[in-house]
């Protein structure tokens, strides 16, 4: 299909990209383009200029801090995340999830920055990043700022990145001793569209000491404080299931052709249970 007319710019640095974004009132950032090109075909997006950040060195690196925290450039692809020895070592669940995103063609082009900046309710990364306590580095004309993941996703397709700004990096804090991550999705088919997701960070020592539980596929990823509190001290599958009965706070998934809101809410509890159990299994 013929796309609408637009100009294309491939800046050589973040500084040049910001200048380009500042120069045009209706500019859009493109990296892998795995959603944006469809939005252009459908005329949902009609930018004057596409600013291509997919080759910016500053956005292409994955590095580890001394404490094991990871800095992931916004233009790192799913394939690169899945294959990175650093990610596999420090955040194995993130690597495994990236290896199962959509299909191999999309994983070769799609980027973590594109995933979070799209902020589609069904996107993989938003609930995971909130559970991990990740932060996002956003550069703009007035400098750089750090946004916590739980303040980044504001509404469907709306994030804290303002016009003229650019997401540069995603920072994953290190996992503390005893901390593990769980990530479970109910999907329509293998590696496909999700109806409900849950991501958890659990610190456990036989019994659960601390848990962060996040449900995805509602308008924005939402923490589950009641379930988190009830998980404290849980040491059996039954007690985890009982705690998950409290999940669903502020979780308002839509009713659509695939499933009712009620069904998604019920499945959110199931995914939350499974994610906690996965993160506390002895062999995990």
């Amino acid at each position, binding site marked *: 299909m013929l796309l609408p007319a637009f100009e294309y710019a491939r800046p050589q640095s973040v500084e040049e990209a910001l200048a380009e974004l500042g120069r045009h009132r209706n500019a859009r950032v493109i990296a892998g383009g795995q959603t944006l090109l*469809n939005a252009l075909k459908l005329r949902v997006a009609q930018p004057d200029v596409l600013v291509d950040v997919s080759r910016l060195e500053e956005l292409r690196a994955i590095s580890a801090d001394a404490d094991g925290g990871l800095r992931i450039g916004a233009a790192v692809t799913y394939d690169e995340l899945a294959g990175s020895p650093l990610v596999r070592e420090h955040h194995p669940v993130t690597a495994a999830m990236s290896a199962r995103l*959509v299909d*191999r*063609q999309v994983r070769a082009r799609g980027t973590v920055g594109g995933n979070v900046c799209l902020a589609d309710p069904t996107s993989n990364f938003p609930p995971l990043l909130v559970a991990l306590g990740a932060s996002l580095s956003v550069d703009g004309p007035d400098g750089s700022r750090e946004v916590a993941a739980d303040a980044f996703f504001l509404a469907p397709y709306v994030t804290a990145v303002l016009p003229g700004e650019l997401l540069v990096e995603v920072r994953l804090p290190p996992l503390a001793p005893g901390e593990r991550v769980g990530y479970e999705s109910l999907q329509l088919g293998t590696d496909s569209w999700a109806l409900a997701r849950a991501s958890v960070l659990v610190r456990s020592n036989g019994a659960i000491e601390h848990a962060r539980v996040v449900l995805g596929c509602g308008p924005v990823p939402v923490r589950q404080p009641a379930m988190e509190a009830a998980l404290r001290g849980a040491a059996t599958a039954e007690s985890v299931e009982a705690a998950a009965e409290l999940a669903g706070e502020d979780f308002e998934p839509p009713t659509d052709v695939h499933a009712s809101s009620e069904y998604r809410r019920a499945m959110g509890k199931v995914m939350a249970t499974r994610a906690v159990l996965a993160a506390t299994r002895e062999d995990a």
Partner: protein
Amino acid sequence: MADSAHPITVIVNGETHERTVLARQLLVHLLRDSLALKGTHIGCDSGNCGACTVVCDGRAIKSCMMLAVQADGRSIETVESLSGPLEAPDPLQAAFTRHHALQCGYCTPGMLMAAKTLLAENPRPTQDEVRHAIKGNVCRCTGYVNIVRAIQDAAGTLE
């Protein structure tokens, strides 16, 4: 709104091409219309069916989901790279023929190129790995069974 035009250099099937493309031109149109490589098909034109799959710097990608200008400096392989008209077919193509892995043939170029990248990174895939590898490629004729068998046969892992 204005189009912008960009000179690009792209290697396609080993041959270097210099072209000027419009910002809004898709890679699949560069391949089919400018370079007359009609083996790459357009199916859904929305990144779902995989018929337009080509290999870009060693990785399978959907050429309807990439701008031609983004292929600047990249190396692209299309289904035409597997064998010429008068040459023996590539082992993967021969296996597709033997196993009746195509009926209408529309999805075949994309299937072959996705399978090509699988075998390059994993020369002896299991059936499960083959099925995951062609997850992004839709076939409405075969029910996939013969395609999976053909790819496994080409890899020598068909039981």
